[in-house]
């Protein structure tokens, strides 16, 4: 059994709060809890009102590929305060001797020890990380052409630098981008989106605060390959009625499509940037991006 000696004497880096502020926060929290209890007790559903954006509005998203120079492909993705770094190594030779005809995909998600102030993360992999790694694995494996790389391994490492909700969505999107950046052959890129269903609204792309406030409410996560219109992963947690499921899945599909277009544009830009860096600046003038996808419809 692995024993982590470091976890026993971890350094606590919490900044002491001003006492008055501390009291105020405590009161606020109690009030919030009371409100929640009041609202949940009679109706059985959670209510929450979004202030800074619309319910079906996605947070601002930023991504950049090729930032880990040692990896074959990498992607840094930010959805406002959620920050995720994904690096892909491979296809490289198998260290062990198991699989044969197709490449093996390895997927590992790790929360940085400083990523969240609610939860404490060790150096060891905990069950939450294991579960989420599996979900990411399932989401992206269908999109890859692993039969092209016999006897090899593709390693995907995802590091969550800051957790402000919707980590899975960011991780799946970043992983797909990093794989595309690494040049691993795939059928399509995977875009992902999630939503929380509460009593009178469906909140897309929830923040960490929203996630904790709506704990126990129904949640939907959709990953899809937009150009084939295939859903690679659909996860529901919590109780939802039929209409809620329908609505939130549709919202998530729309959201994924929007993320997909951002991913595409980003990859094209990164390739052109790379070409420019390589020196032959004249060639770029002749290059145009293809909009044929939009024109051709079955």
């Amino acid at each position, binding site marked *: 059994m692995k024993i982590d000696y470091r976890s026993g004497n971890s350094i606590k880096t919490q900044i002491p709060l001003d006492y008055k502020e501390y009291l105020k926060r405590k009161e606020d929290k109690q009030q919030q809890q009371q409100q929640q209890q009041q609202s949940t007790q009679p109706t059985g559903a959670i209510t929450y009102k979004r202030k800074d954006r619309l319910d079906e509005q996605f947070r601002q998203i930023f991504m950049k590929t090729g930032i880990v120079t040692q990896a074959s492909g990498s992607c840094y993705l930010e959805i406002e305060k959620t920050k995720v770094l994904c690096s892909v190594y491979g296809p490289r030779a198998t260290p062990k001797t198991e699989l044969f005809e197709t490449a093996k995909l390895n997927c590992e998600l790790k929360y940085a020890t400083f990523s969240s102030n609610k939860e404490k993360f060790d150096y060891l992999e905990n069950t939450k990380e294991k579960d989420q790694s599996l979900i990411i694995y399932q989401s992206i494996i269908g999109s890859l052409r692993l039969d092209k790389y016999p006897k090899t391994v593709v390693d995907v490492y995802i590091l969550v630098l800051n957790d402000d909700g919707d980590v899975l969505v960011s991780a799946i999107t970043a992983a797909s981008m990093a794989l595309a950046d690494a040049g691993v052959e795939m059928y399509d890129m995977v875009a992902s989106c999630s939503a929380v269903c509460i009593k009178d609204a469906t909140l897309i792309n929830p923040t960490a605060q929203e996630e904790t406030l709506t704990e126990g409410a129904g949640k939907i996560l959709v990953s899809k390959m937009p150009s084939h219109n295939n859903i690679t992963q659909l996860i529901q947690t919590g109780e939802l009625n039929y209409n809620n499921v329908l609505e939130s899945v549709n919202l998530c599909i729309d959201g994924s499509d929007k993320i997909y277009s951002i991913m595409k544009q980003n990859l094209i830009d990164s390739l052109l940037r790379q070409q420019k860096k390589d020196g032959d600046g004249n060639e770029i003038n002749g290059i145009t991006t293809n909009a*044929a996808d939009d024109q051709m419809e079955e």
Partner: protein
Amino acid sequence: MEKTIDNNDSQDIVVTPGQRLSKAVDYISLDGTYVHKGYIYSSVLGFQHIVKRNLQETKENKDENNNNNSSSEESNIKDERDFITVSKEKDPGVVPEIGSIVTVQVLRTNPRLASVAILCVGTKALKETFNGIIRIQDVRATEIDKVEIYKSFRPGDIVLAQIISLGDSRSYYLSTAKNELGVVFAQSVAGGTMIPISWNMMQCPITKTKEFRKVAKMDNSIETEQE
């Protein structure tokens, strides 16, 4: 075989994985693309290249005439279509395939086989090496029963070999049973780069000692094959 890429088309188009390129009846899909439900899609990020049929025919006329004699009807239909490929300047994963000529370095030998590390596939260097073995029966084509591994390869030798099978789970199986395959670079005990003097002998220029090797016959034929 690499195809000649027609760069005269001034509009090189950047495509992303999963992007639909054309109908499957218009082109023949090559590297970096795949066919799904009658359409050709890109499977990597890169530039879309159309490879013209005529250019190719002049280069590979002989090959096609030899190969496609039997299936003449099929080739007639195919002849009208150009090829389509997607490629990026920095391409990471070259993976050894059956039949490809590889450059390997000998790591260890034992009486039954030589274990090697695959360094290059064709003319492309691998980022990370793959393991392979050359079994005693695959060292040369004639007098297989008289082959001795230590008279064919020594650790450190650079060898040209062909992949004959994906092998067991641990390593590829390689063969040097051709005149143009075998040791291309070897150092003697004294440290000098040895000079081949016959098909199974190399000589050290410093000490003039002769050592046995399965020497590759280096001439132009192999270079053209790789290009």
